[in-house]
C-alpha cells in the first residue's frame, strides 16, 4: 500500500513472531504449540513479502534485478507454505500416535527421551 511504511509491516511480523515464541515456551498443549509455530512461520512470510515489495534492490552489475529479487521473496513464501503443510501433517500424526499410546497429550509428561 502506498502510504504505509515498511516498518509497519515489519513490526506486525515481529509482534506475531514474538507471540508465537511465547506460546511455544509457555503452553503445554502440543496442538496449541503447533498453532504457535504456524503463527511464527506466517510472521516470517509477511516479512518476506514486505521486503520483496519495498526493498526490491535496484539493478546493479552482477546482482539480481528488481524483478528477480521481488520474485525471490514470493518463491520463498510458497516453499514455506509447502513445508508448513508437510510439517503439520506429520506433526499431528505424531500427536495422534502419542495420544493413542498414553491417553494424554500433556507436553510436560513426555519425558521418554530424557537421559
Amino acid at each position, binding site marked *: 500500500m502506498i502510504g504505509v511504511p515498511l516498518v509497519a509491516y515489519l513490526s506486525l511480523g515481529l509482534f506475531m513472531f514474538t507471540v508465537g515464541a511465547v506460546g511455544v515456551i509457555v503452553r503445554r498443549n502440543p496442538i496449541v504449540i503447533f498453532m504457535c509455530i504456524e503463527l511464527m512461520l506466517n510472521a516470517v512470510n509477511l516479512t518476506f513479502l514486505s521486503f520483496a515489495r519495498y526493498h526490491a534492490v535496484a539493478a546493479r552489475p552482477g546482482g539480481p534485478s528488481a*524483478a528477480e529479487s521481488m520474485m525471490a521473496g514470493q518463491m520463498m513464501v510458497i516453499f514455506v507454505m509447502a513445508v508448513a*503443510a508437510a510439517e503439520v501433517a506429520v506433526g499431528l500424526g505424531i500427536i495422534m500416535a502419542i495420544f493413542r499410546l498414553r491417553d494424554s497429550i500433556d507436553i510436560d509428561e513426555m519425558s521418554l527421551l530424557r537421559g
Partner: protein
Amino acid sequence: MINVAGIEITPELVAFGGLATVAALAAIGVVAFNNAVRSALCLVVNFFLLAVLYFTLNAELLGISQVIVYTGAIMVLFLFVIMLLNLGAPQILHEKWDFKRPAGIVLALVFAGLIAGQILPSLMSASRPVSNPALDAYGSPQAIGRTLFSTYVFPFEAVSILLLIGIVGSILLAKRRI
C-alpha cells in the same frame, strides 16, 4: 496531510492499523485462550487478515493460496485433530503457573526489544513501495508460474518430494496397523 511525530497519517495507514490491530489481537488470542478450539478460531482470523495484507503487498496469488492452504487445509486438519482427541471440558489441560511463564515473557520481550532496536531503525527510510508499474504484475499467477518452473524448478521438485514423504509419513504414523 496530518502529521504525527514525523509520520504521515494517510488513509491507507489507518486501514493498515485496523487490520494489524485485529491480527495482533487474534495472535494473542491463540496463546491466551485455554480452549484449543478457541485458539484455532483465533488463528483462522489471523490467517484471513494476513491474506488481506498479502493483497495490499501486490502478492495476489499468495493471498489466495494463504486462504486455501492455511485457512482451508491446515486449519481444518487442526480442528479435525482437536475433535478426534476430544479434548473437551474434562480434559482441558490445567495450565500451571510455574517458572516457564514469566521466563518465556521475559525472553520474548528481550528478543523483541533486541530486533526492534537493532533492525527497525535502519529501515525507517523505506516509507513507500518500489514505484515501478512494471513490478505490479509480479504477484500474478502467470509471473509466479513462469518463475517457479524456470529459475526455481529444482526447489519445486524437492518440495514435491518432501510433500510425498509427508503424506506417506503421516499415514504411517496415524494408522494402527498397516
